[in-house]
């Protein structure tokens, strides 16, 4: 590790303040306010003391971890991407978030209090579900470091700037080359897909099952069984979708390597909607001699049509971004990290290159008749 990368000359207080503010809101202010409101509601309604004690204890944890994460966030944001310093602070913060959430379980006491006051809820299972996206957040730090290391060193003048690839030698299947991909973008999209299609639905199902179980009514047994089936579908479909999302995010816009997983994702999403929508038919016949059938398949198909429009979007994206990506020499998809100035510069370079090319063609065309004459 190069300790010089911790040097103050790399440090940007403005960037650091932005990241620190985001961390402070996310890990300190919002949870602290939520627990404070909870305490106020409890005291107003003369709620149980053990809940108040629990919330107070959690507030202390939020203060400790929140402040530490805010400080870590400042240093992470202040150092440039691709530097060891940013990587170290980033990975420390990501791991600490896992410890932070685990500590809020208070060794099982949170679960006990919820069980006494409401219903039995397996918080450790929910933590296990949270652990997977949290692990991806840790890996994202590695991804960001791997993606940004070369540009950082190029900018620092420590290595030579890589030459652009010649578009003439590029075939469409070359789009799948790994060096076009961005690990950070891939992991980020995989993580958000995993959260949206697996983690949140599973947590909702866990909460619903806990709620239904507390009713202790035989009539909900079939519904619980349905929820189990849906859970397994969520995992079976959600995990491949997260894998596809990785490749979609990994490859840049305008590449076939992004287009193919994107289309596959839309198709799986359509099936996911069909499954989670119970194929448009809800049957409730748990109560003896009463059966309720609800057929909303047409409405579900309408939702699916809306989702299917994303296929049009990705086709357009491929068509519109491909020339640009080609002209830029097939770079990694890092536009989101470009500054406005850099973006303008890149566009100007592209226009200049196009004009040069056009001028060269005109010149070639002007010389050809002379040769014919000769």
């Amino acid at each position, binding site marked *: 590790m190069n300790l010089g990368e911790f040097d103050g000359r790399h440090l940007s207080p403005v960037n650091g303040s932005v990241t620190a503010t985001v961390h402070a809101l996310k890990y300190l202010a919002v949870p602290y306010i939520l627990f404070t409101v909870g305490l106020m509601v409890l005291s107003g309604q003369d709620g149980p003391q053990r809940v108040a004690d629990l919330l107070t204890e959690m507030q202390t944890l939020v203060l400790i971890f929140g402040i530490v994460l805010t400080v870590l966030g400042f240093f992470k944001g202040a150092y440039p991407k691709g530097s060891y310093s940013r990587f170290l602070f980033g990975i420390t913060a990501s791991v600490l978030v896992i410890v932070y959430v685990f500590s809020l379980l208070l060794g099982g006491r949170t679960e006990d209090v919820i069980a006494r006051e409401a219903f039995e809820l397996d918080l450790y299972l929910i933590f296990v579900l949270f652990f997977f996206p949290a692990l991806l957040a840790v890996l994202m730090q590695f991804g960001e470091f791997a993606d940004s290391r070369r540009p950082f060193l190029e900018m620092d003048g420590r290595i030579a700037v890589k030459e652009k690839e010649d578009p003439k030698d590029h075939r469409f299947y070359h789009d799948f080359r790994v060096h076009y991909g961005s690990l950070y973008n891939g992991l980020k999209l995989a993580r958000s897909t995993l959260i949206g299609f697996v983690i949140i639905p599973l947590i909702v199902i866990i909460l619903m099952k806990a709620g239904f179980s507390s009713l202790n009514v035989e009539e909900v047994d079939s519904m619980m069984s349905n929820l189990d089936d849906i859970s397994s579908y969520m995992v079976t479909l959600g995990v491949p979708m997260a894998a596809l999302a990785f490749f979609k995010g990994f490859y840049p816009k305008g590449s076939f390597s992004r287009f193919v997983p994107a289309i596959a994702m839309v198709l799986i999403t359509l099936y996911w909607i069909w499954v989670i929508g119970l194929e448009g038919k809800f049957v409730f016949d748990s109560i003896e001699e009463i059966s309720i059938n609800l057929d909303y398949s*047409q409405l579900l198909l309408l*939702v699916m049509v809306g989702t299917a429009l994303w296929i049009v979007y990705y086709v357009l994206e491929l068509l519109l971004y491909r020339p640009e990506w080609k002209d830029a020499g097939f770079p990694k998809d890092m536009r989101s990290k470009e500054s406005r100035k850099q973006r303008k510069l890149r566009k100007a370079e592209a226009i200049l290159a196009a004009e040069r090319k056009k001028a060269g063609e005109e010149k070639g065309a002007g010389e050809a008749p002379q040769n014919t004459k000769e």
Partner: protein
Amino acid sequence: MKLPLVATRLIIVAFKLMVAAIVVLSILPLLTGGIGLDLEDGNEGGMTLDDSTIHVGMPMTVRNDGFFDINDLQVSFIFMNEDGDVLAESEGEKMDIPAGGETEVSIEIALDLLDLDRQMRSDLIFNGTEMMFDAKISAKYTLDMVQLSVEVGSDMGWGPFISDLQVDERNANAVEEGDDRFVNVPFSFRADDVLNGIQTITVTEYRDENGYTSNVTQFVHMSQQVNEMAKIPLSQDAYDRLTNGTANATVRTTLYILDCSTYDEGYLNLGGGGGGGGGDPVWNMQLQLSSSILKDIGGSYFVSIPFSFQVDPAYYYQIANAFVEYWDSDGFYTNVNQNVYLDENGWADIQIWIPQEAYDTVYYGDQLVHVKVTMTYQYWTGYSEMDYSEPWGVSP
């Protein structure tokens, strides 16, 4: 981002918002009670019989304060017997309930009795029966994109529509009209309101022990309580036999409706003698062995034999004789003679002493016993007999 992509994204978002709005606007009225059914108390449905079809009208008000019309609202019923075989189906008209108001709709259950097999129909009319039915309510909502159907299965008690057909042979009388001879036999029955005013046929038949028969057919308009008189023509000989008490005649009234029938009959003896009816001092004598008990009094055993009867008030406070006979399945037989006081209570309890073997037979085993009680008062004799195999209670 490029403009066509922004436009596509906006179209997708707009489309999803539209679908979300449709879903919210569909669910909201359900949650806030904007859609519902009202069955008002004063609006209870009535039952009518039209030819052979029973119609049950059920007026209700459908409130639709939602944003979408309710289309093709349909109520249908399936009637089944206890085995689940479909007996009859009734399908209501499809109705549309426009959004933003209340609509009065009349749900009608129609059951054609001729769709039922004769036994079922007979049970339904004369005895009352339980029928299983499935009610199904279906409707389309949210621009016909959502179809809801609710099925409710239940038992439903029907009838009896005609009950208590009784021939009042005790008030029968023989009449002479010039050269014609008749016997007037009153009979009565009850009819449900649904049959009010409907005409039915009764046939009252006279038969004596000499093989003489005669009958009369009547058209009867039904009402809640029907009291009719069957005027049966008799020959002079039959009339004489009836009036001098040697006819031993029976009279049977049969009521016909919807290809089903029921009857009641009585024993006519206007001239005295014999048992039951026609001025008898005692009638309706019945053993009440379900109330009998066994007793063990220090090694002595007896069984009490209760029986009930009805007494003509003219014979109150008279003494009749009861001869009770008892057999068990092991061949044991005993009898006892006892006087019975005739009063308005109409109850007697005769005790029969039995040996231990006979006691054990009925106490430890589920053995069949046969009991017969014969009552005699002056010229009148009547009896009742019964097999009994239930375990008998024992009093210390």
